[in-house]
């Protein structure tokens, strides 16, 4: 079992995210749709985890805890996908190559299993980042 694996991360749209987003970003549906990382079973194996294990994803700008799941759409080994949204944006590098657009796709991340840690909710992540989080409601 390796402790860490380095993958190439992309963050893109998905219909699960779309439906949940329109329900509301504070809903359980949004949480379940977006706080996941999709990765190839081979990479999970290399990392020594089963699907539905929580992992910490760390990029050059930060980390986030998400649940590793098997891709709903085939993802080749070496590539990982967090659906666009709050969790993805904890690790998306804001560098734009002077075009205005952050590096939403194609940035290296380190993934490590953290089976005992919990995923944070969307509000906690965003309000927490700007010092407004007051604990659960």
């Amino acid at each position, binding site marked *: 079992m390796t402790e860490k694996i380095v993958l190439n991360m*992309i963050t893109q749209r998905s219909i699960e995210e779309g439906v949940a987003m*329109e329900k509301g970003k504070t809903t359980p549906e949004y949480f379940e749709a977006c706080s996941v990382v999709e990765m190839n079973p081979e990479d999970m194996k290399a990392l020594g985890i089963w699907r539905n294990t929580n992992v910490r994803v760390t990029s050059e700008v930060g980390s986030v805890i998400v649940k590793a799941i098997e891709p709903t*759409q085939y993802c080749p080994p070496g590539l990982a996908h967090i659906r666009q*949204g709050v969790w993805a*944006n904890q690790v998306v590098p804001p560098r734009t190559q*002077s*075009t205005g657009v952050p590096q939403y796709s194609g940035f290296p991340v380190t993934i490590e299993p953290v089976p005992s840690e919990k995923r944070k909710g969307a509000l906690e992540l965003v309000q927490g980042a700007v010092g407004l989080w007051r604990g659960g409601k």
Partner: protein
Amino acid sequence: MPKIVTDVGCPYCGASCDDLEILVSDDGKKILEVYNACAIGNEVFHHASSPDRLKRPRLRQPDGTYQEISYDEAVDYTAKVLLKAKKPLIYGFGSTNCEAMSAVGRVAEKSGAVLDNCASICHGPSFLAIFDNGYPSCTLGEVKNRADVVVFWGCNPMHAHPRHTSRYSIFPRGFFTEKGQRQRKMISIDPRETETAKLADIHLMVQQGHDYELFDAFRTVLRGHDIPDEVAGIRKEAILEAAGIMKNARFGMIFFGMGCTHTDGRNHNVDIAISLTRDLNTVAKYSIMAMRGHYNIAGPGQVWSWQFGFPYCIDLTKGTHAHMNPGETSSIDLAMRDEVDAFINIGTDAGAHFPIDAVKHLRKHPFITIDPNICMASEISDLHIPVAVVGVEEAGVVYRMDNVPIQFKKVVDPPEGVISDEQLFDRVYLRICELTETEPTWIPAKGHAKAPVTAGQ
């Protein structure tokens, strides 16, 4: 008796379907059923009529909680924030109508703001590519009626534009395409085998981030030159096969998405796609189109181009003219460089969709959200102003992904007292005029139609 409203536009994705039918309650206040919409569009309408909609603006108090205030107070607060800042940024507009985009143009100009829209983090690079290389494109009906080869590059309409493939691009039977899908060859180019890729005749699983090389390979092959045995993870034979299909089209179409604009090279991935489209036009008829994300995200590109000459990233701080240079005047760059000192988020959710570092930078200064719903941005704002949901509670012009204007209808009334984006901006504009003791300059406004008169002949 509940009534059906027909030909309703869907305020979700850039496919801007306008064939929805909505069953509305007796009193015309509640949405009961939504027909013809995709799963997401369905949700938009139902969410709009949920009972927990906000009805008044909320201002954050020193203890961190929100308190309701009047619209007048919210307008005054917003006007003062805009006037006080040296360089305020007004950003968003993916989900509102063109009337609001026009109204905000007046506000931004008067207050010396930077005006930007969601394209800035989405298809902005496509604009950069269009600036450099043009845009041979068409309306979606051309695809439906003529296209026999359709390429989806770095986009996944089955997820992002659920009805795109059935209304326009793969399945529909058109005038010259009576056999529908059977008459079309479909190529998908994507690093993942997406639902869209699964539908395709050919899926080229390009190595992520190396689209530019693959485009260059197609162009090189089309000019009759040899290429290496493998490019961007794709074997030469597969490239030759796909190039052969593209070349043999009568009417070919290339759709591209975030897979191109969100990764290394950004604009140049689109830039070279446009070059490829130009090349292909020497052997067949070809068009290319950006898979725009929101139902009216093409709108600000249109409205602001006719008002300011630029589709996005418009710096109006000089007062005498507009300046645009993405990389400098783009929201993320402005945020990361601490180059703005006030932020208004409208018709989008920067809180969820900006990288968190950019959110942190923006939060150092006054932060206002204008949105019908609770979202991440509203929950970190100093002020949240709820507004009517465009396409549900407010009519207006929207521009579909192919820049076709669609006149969206209103289906139900907004919650009592809730105003539209356009009304809000017009009130902010008037307040700014009051505060600066200047005369408002209007061009005769829409909505004040006089009775037609006839030429005296």
